[in-house]
């Protein structure tokens, strides 16, 4: 990674034959451009969009974007830049959620019932998973829960399993990532990290 960046810098200094100072400015200009694009966008903007649109290499773009994320994080103002659902997006700080709802009249997204959450957690960690396996884990029939989750576009069929009857297997969607403010599936807390289910009863 580090090499890539250095190459990039060297390449540019060859082209423009400017002192070091100039490149930092260059980066700042590109960073500003990325920021502007993000500012206008309704949807998370994937890294590939920047790479393709502005012909910068991926590592470079990633470094610039991540430093933007850090800048907004350090500033700790009303706006944060968030890596979400495989892209970058400006969001308001959760600190002001309550006030924004009151003043601007934005609505709070509807939460999920306990059963839906349970089902969703199982699907998220065990995908692709078939209905029967979900039922088995929860000890109750989960057909309704899966149907409701599909309605909310949080899960979708992702294929069929080579089991008797070739049942549909379910997985989570991009919407799921957005809903929980995750960037990618591996950002889910590790199951082993989730404490308890130890054998003592300190809850």
């Amino acid at each position, binding site marked *: 990674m580090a090499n890539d960046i250095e190459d990039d810098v060297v390449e540019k200094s060859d082209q423009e034959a400017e002192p070091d100072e100039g490149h930092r400015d260059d980066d700042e200009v590109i960073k500003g451009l990325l920021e502007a694009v993000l500012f206008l966008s309704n949807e998370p903007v994937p890294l590939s969009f920047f790479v393709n649109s502005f012909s910068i290499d991926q590592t470079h773009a990633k470094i610039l974007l991540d430093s933007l994320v850090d800048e907004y994080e350090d500033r700790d103002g009303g706006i944060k830049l968030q890596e979400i659902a495989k892209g970058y997006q400006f969001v*308001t700080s*959760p600190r002001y*959620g309550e006030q924004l709802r009151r003043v601007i009249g934005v609505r709070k*997204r509807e*939460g*999920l019932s306990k059963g839906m*959450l*349970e089902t969703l957690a199982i699907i998220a960690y065990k995908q692709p998973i078939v209905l029967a396996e979900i039922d088995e884990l929860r*000890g109750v029939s989960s057909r309704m829960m899966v149907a409701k989750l599909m309605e909310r576009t949080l899960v979708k069929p992702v294929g069929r399993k080579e089991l008797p009857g070739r049942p549909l297997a379910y997985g989570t969607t991009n919407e799921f990532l957005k*809903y929980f403010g995750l960037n990618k599936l591996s950002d889910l807390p590790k199951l082993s990290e989730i404490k308890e289910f130890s054998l003592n009863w300190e809850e």
Partner: protein
Amino acid sequence: MSDIEDKIEAEPGENPENNPIIHIDNFDGPLDLLWDLIKKAKIDITEITISHITEQYLAYLKLMEKLNVRVATDFIRMASELLFYKSCALLPAGQIEDEYFVPPLPPELVQKLLEFKKFQNASRRLMEEFEVSANRYTRVNKVEEIIEIDDYGEVSLFDLLKAFADVIQSRKAVDEKEIVFDEILVSDRIEHIKNMLERSDVIQFPDIFTAKPSRMEIVVTFMAILELARTRIIKLLQHKIFGTIRIVKHAVAAVQAPPAPEGA
């Protein structure tokens, strides 16, 4: 399930003295209930006995029935599972009989419970994540309005007239369209295929359609084929995958098929 817990919590005096289980905050499912019972007993899950937990579980079901709660089948299934485990434990195992031995929960049930708990905790974590992300808002631009304004030019009276004419034209087009109801019946198509089979023993699948079949004709013909196959009047043969399907009279096929399944 929430109505169950409401009703149970609403009636705390209802339970007999040997049944100290009433403050279930929230269970939705037999595993949840089971877990709660074990927790109430304050015993390690590996040490609790099957008979103890079965008793409690059944007492709970009875209580729910008493309160006129419609007990979900899932709960009853778990009860029978528990009874099954219990009866298994009661059978002599052929090992050294220990008078004081109390059979614990079977490991598969313990495993199931722990696994369930794991995901229940995971869902709690997801809930926390949701709480944070539900407080973040993103912008909602109306993209079209911003971008496309420059693309529109001035409109002359002529343009306006033309646009008006276009609308009139398109209305006419719609008005004049005659809706042709082409009636194709499955029974007709069946007759047609039967007739074709009178003339030759084997028909190639594409031949049963007219030159330019309408969507209706294709569907109806297909249904006719299915019906004929179902009633064992025809037999469908194919010599290789994606090869042309041939339609054969059932009697003919029965003779031909066993020795050499469809020649060329």
